């Protein structure tokens, strides 16, 4: 079982289970890995087969960051129209991603590049949306990783509905690890203000659904600081709906993994929803189109850079106290892997298939109505006739 040492909760009785931290503005986010790489012993961190493989996590963070860096470069070169960088959020995403089991299902926003990485989604496929070759880019069912959602908050309700499906399939609370499933849905701090997100909380709570809301509070929703959305921590929101909210250090991959691991286990076991606030920071501008110096300071950014999730784990892995084998060979190989990945991204991006003019017509409906077919025919004839360069 995944549930660890229960801590007496302050909330109503049905929320009394182990929580990483009881959310409150008074509480610092729960953390076990400090910026210097020290890993605090904590009984709430899973051990044994359930433990986070720190080497693998580090590797995922490094490679996912490389995806991000390369994508930014590709945008600068004009290969992508836009890129929403996740720099600084790798700890939260990899922590969450490694807590997933094969049958769990993920609903991302548009920034979960590292989660996609953890699930084995080809990172080249993440580029299509931003290159303008597709609005999706992968088959959601292949890796149980749904399409990026651009309408803030909309995916939270899809997650809830999927979780209702899991309940109806009987795939929750059976105790069979090959059967029980849960949904992990990502959202930003800004998304907390959308009505739909809050409706998702209503449904998840009232129906005790197997869904975990993973909110990366990266402090900003474009130019709006978190204080525009709320005057209490994001994690507090959940208690108002009657389910637990936990607040973790989003730059601590171990803590993020532990919190998600527990919440997913709880959900799969039929315990219902959990809200996780991963306190982190979006170190790059909102997207490559954004100018973040208009609304925030370099020094704030520097401050968060000093809490970098990769640096922290590397310090631990290469430090004296590390229990994981991380030798130079590991790091050298990782660097080579990064290079190969970068090259693959660059060439993969440029060769992403461009859709044909028929594509939109073909996928609007399952079977094309006659009128739409006429429009398609007309359009294809127009395209075939050549641009004409206005005569």
């Amino acid at each position, binding site marked *: 079982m995944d549930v660890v040492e229960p801590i007496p909760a302050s909330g109503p009785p049905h929320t009394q289970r182990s929580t990483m931290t009881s959310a409150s503005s008074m509480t610092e986010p729960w953390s076990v890995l400090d910026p210097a790489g020290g890993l605090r012993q904590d009984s709430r961190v899973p051990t044994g087969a359930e433990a986070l493989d720190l080497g693998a996590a580090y590797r995922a963070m490094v490679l996912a960051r490389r995806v991000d860096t390369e994508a930014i470069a590709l945008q600068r070169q004009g290969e992508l129209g836009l890129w929403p960088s996740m720099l600084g959020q790798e700890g939260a995403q990899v922590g969450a991603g490694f807590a997933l089991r094969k049958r769990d299902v993920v609903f991302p926003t548009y920034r979960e590049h590292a989660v996609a990485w953890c699930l084995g989604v080809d990172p080249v496929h993440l580029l299509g949306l931003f290159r303008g070759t*597709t*609005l*999706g880019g992968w*088959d*959601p*069912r292949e890796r149980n990783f*749904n*399409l990026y959602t651009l*309408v803030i908050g*909309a995916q*939270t*309700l*899809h*997650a*809830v*509905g*999927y*979780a*209702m*499906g*899991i*309940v*109806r*399939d009987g795939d929750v609370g059976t105790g069979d690890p090959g059967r029980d499933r849960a949904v992990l849905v990502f959202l930003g701090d800004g998304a907390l203000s959308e*009505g*739909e997100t809050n*409706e*998702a909380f*209503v*449904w998840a709570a*009232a129906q005790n659904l197997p869904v975990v809301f993973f909110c990366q509070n990266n402090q900003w929703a474009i130019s709006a600081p978190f204080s525009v959305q709320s005057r209490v921590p994001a994690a507090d929101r959940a208690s108002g709906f009657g389910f637990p909210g936990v607040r973790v250090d989003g730059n601590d991959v171990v803590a993020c993994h532990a919190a998600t691991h527990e919440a997913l286990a709880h959900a799969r076991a039929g315990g219902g929803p959990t809200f996780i606030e991963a306190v982190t920071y979006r170190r790059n501008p909102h997207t490559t189109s954004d100018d973040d110096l208009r609304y925030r300071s370099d020094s704030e950014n520097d401050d968060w850079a000093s809490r970098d999730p990769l640096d922290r784990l590397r310090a631990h892995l290469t430090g004296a106290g590390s229990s994981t084998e991380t030798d130079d060979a590991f790091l050298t190989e990782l660097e080579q892997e990064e290079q190969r990945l970068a090259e693959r991204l660059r060439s993969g991006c440029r060769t992403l298939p461009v*859709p044909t003019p028929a*594509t*939109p017509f*073909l*996928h*609007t*409906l*399952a079977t094309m*109505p*006659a*009128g*739409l077919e006429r429009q398609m025919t007309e359009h294809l004839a127009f395209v075939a006739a050549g641009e004409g360069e206005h005569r």
Partner: protein
Amino acid sequence: MSTALAHALNAGLRDAMKADDKVVLIGQDIGQLGGVFRVTDGLRKEFGEDRVITSPLGEAGIVGSAIGLAMAGYRPVCEIQFDGFVFPAMNQIVTQLAKYRHRSEGAVSLPVVVRIPVGGGIGAIEHHSESPEAYFAHTPGLRVLCPSDSQDAYDLLRQAVRCDDPVIFLEPKRSYWAKGGVDRSGGAADIESARIVRPGGDLTLVTYGALVPVAMKAAGILAEEGRSVEVIDLRSLSPIDDATVVASVRRTGRLVIAHEAARTGGIAGELTARVQTQAFYELEAPVLRVTGYDTPYPPSRLEEDWLPNVDRVLDACDLSLTH
């Protein structure tokens, strides 16, 4: 064996649920109460709480969770309580439900039906008499259906549930208690085709939903006066079966279109545009529209005159015939 339209819908839901255990219903008050119009009456008892889900009071939640259920392999049928209350769900309908197949390049089907009782004429308070079909018909990726009698109610609903596309299913609430025969073998009704409900040669009168009986009444009166009116029930408002209408107009040369929704941007304007392109030389008179006016739906004491009624339809037909 005459069956009220509401009961035909109830039978359609029951048969659909029997035929496929992935069919689930979601909506406000659809469980023990059977919905405010009793369309889901008895279904919770028969199929249980897990398949007939009384939802919290949030329309975005109803459609959004239906999308998630569809992703998980279910075929949800949502009920929106009244036409005027669909707007909180608009974001999920327009940006998600309608677009997901396209977004996923065909990988993800969302076989979701959104049932909405629509239209006026029942003496109701605000938001209980509206006709929002044009919003949906203007949204690519949705199918929009609107039956006018018990048989079509049953057939189109069965087809809607079977269909892999999202379907907005508009139920003319004024006709809920109108009776008609229902054959439940469920094969018929192509969900893309209009239906000629009364053949005629002098004028084509097109409408849908609760105005079909109104049009039929007008056609009957005109027949007594020696005018032969062809009445077409569109049934599908997206896609619109303009071919059937155009073929009719090519024979009659005259077209009147009626709907309850506001005139500007309504289905009638769209159909007019299509017909005038395809039957330009055959049209002997301008296409005329008999519609709700470009005002919000009025207080019910005014609705009898405000709505397209037999007299307004007759006036338009006269105008067209004497043009």
